[in-house]
């Protein structure tokens, strides 16, 4: 394939111009800050602190993972009919789905969580009458409920947007071959749409992980809740650094997982010219 690589333009000469110097300086500052932080953490590490709060923070970390996973899965299930509504030619269904997405994307997750948690609290008698109070009484269910609805709106928009990118001609080709709607959807449209949707889905998962910290203010001991509790007892600022590191570990793991999935889903697009 040497002929092909000969066609490439020669690499541009890289001079030490101002932006490049500035970039290196900034990078240096960041590396220095990271090293200082690492030195601080090593110096500040105490087995006493780790023993008192380490286990609780890890259990909070697990609570965060559970909360996010559950919400994302339920949200994904809800997003399917909402996405279908967004793509529906029926104006009433379309408007309903649009309104749903508009509300959940247009208001802060914090406000939604408060609305559900304390709103449910003030309608206790009514909820009791219909047997829903046992559900809304529990902070955990309130959080999963709100987060699921919130993420379903984002996921529906991602999915609907991705399906729109599949050319209409593909569906027509399927119909010409006499394939059923189900086969067209699962074998032609979705595989192509999911390639487009993969990265936005990844963003949504990351946003959900960070947004889940909101659960801590409605009495759930997730990673943020345990962090605040540890900080309130120790006044030690490293608690927040450890929490940040745990969140980063989670996000980085997902990022790598997403790289693997993208390679797998796009393996038919890789060109053999390297």
């Amino acid at each position, binding site marked *: 394939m040497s002929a092909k690589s000969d066609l490439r333009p020669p690499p541009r000469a890289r001079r030490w111009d101002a932006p490049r110097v500035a970039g290196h300086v900034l990078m240096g500052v960041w590396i220095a800050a990271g090293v200082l932080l690492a030195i601080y953490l090593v110096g500040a590490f105490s087995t006493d602190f780790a023993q008192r709060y380490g286990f609780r923070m890890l259990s909070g970390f697990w609570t965060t993972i559970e909360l996010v996973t559950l919400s994302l899965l339920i949200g994904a299930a809800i997003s399917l009919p909402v996405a279908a509504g967004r793509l529906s030619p029926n104006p009433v269904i379309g408007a309903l789905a649009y309104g749903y997405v508009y509300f959940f994307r247009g208001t802060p997750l914090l406000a939604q969580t408060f609305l559900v948690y304390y709103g449910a609290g003030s309608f206790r008698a009514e909820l009791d009458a219909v047997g829903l109070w046992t559900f809304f009484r529990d902070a955990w269910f309130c959080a999963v409920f709100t987060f699921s609805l919130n993420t379903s709106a984002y996921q529906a928009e991602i999915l609907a947007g991705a399906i729109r990118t599949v050319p209409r001609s593909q569906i027509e080709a399927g119909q010409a071959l006499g394939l059923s709607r189900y086969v067209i959807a699962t074998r032609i449209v979705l595989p192509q749409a999911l390639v487009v949707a993969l990265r936005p889905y990844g963003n949504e998962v990351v946003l959900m992980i960070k947004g889940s910290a909101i659960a801590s*203010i409605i009495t759930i001991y997730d990673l943020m809740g345990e962090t605040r509790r540890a900080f309130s007892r120790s*006044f030690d600022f490293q608690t927040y650094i450890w929490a940040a590191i745990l969140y980063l570990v989670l996000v980085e793991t997902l990022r790598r997982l997403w790289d693997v999935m993208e390679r797998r889903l796009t393996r038919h697009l890789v060109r053999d010219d390297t």
Partner: protein
Amino acid sequence: MRPTLRLAVAAAALMAATGFSQAQEKLRIGTEGAYPPFNYTDASGQLMGFDIDIANALCEEMQVECEFVTQDWDGIIPALQANRFDAIIASMSITEERRQQVDFTNKYYNTPPAIAVPEDSDLTEATPESLSGKALGAQSSTTHSNYAEAKFPDADLRLYPTAEEYKLDLSSGRLDGVIDDVVVLSEWVDSEDGACCKILTPLPLDPEINGEGAGIAIRKGEDELRERFNDAIAAIRENGTYQEINEKYFDFDVYGD
């Protein structure tokens, strides 16, 4: 304290000291503004309460101009250390844990904790056994949450950022009880909002947890400011101003023994 933190605090103190000499007449007081009747904001956004009146009386006594800064409870000590204000007058109990971070003046009041429960509660006493498995609410980062953790380890302790939120959850029935200062809870159950609930029992003060009462927190090493506050507290106790403010809010002496 660790060396790096000590350095940071020393630097903050130095900055404060130089800043202070330039504006001698102005003192910034940090308070929470969500803890009636001690400190709260009324409908027009005005800060009110026992702490605020005491702070104003002390400033008058010290002949300085006081400016109030409201700050979330969870971050109030870090904010003092970060020089956002010069003193905390917000019903902060003087405890060992906090003493490692800040200095305190002498107490300016001391009241015991209590537990409030819904009117129809079947709880009759506050013991580790009776509260076992019960949902008990408290404001986070308070001596009361520490008290609950230490004395009622089997209770299901829920922590809230402010007192407002646990009150909502107690009246909606999410909580079986809440723990806070007896004055705060009595004031609430006597009000319209707190009609749902009653005081179960006051709790005995534990000096190890509750400390010596509520004091004014200042940055470490500002001994001069601390002494000025101490003198002012003694002076308003002496000249009757304290008693006047006390009577305005309570029908008993909150200063304690």
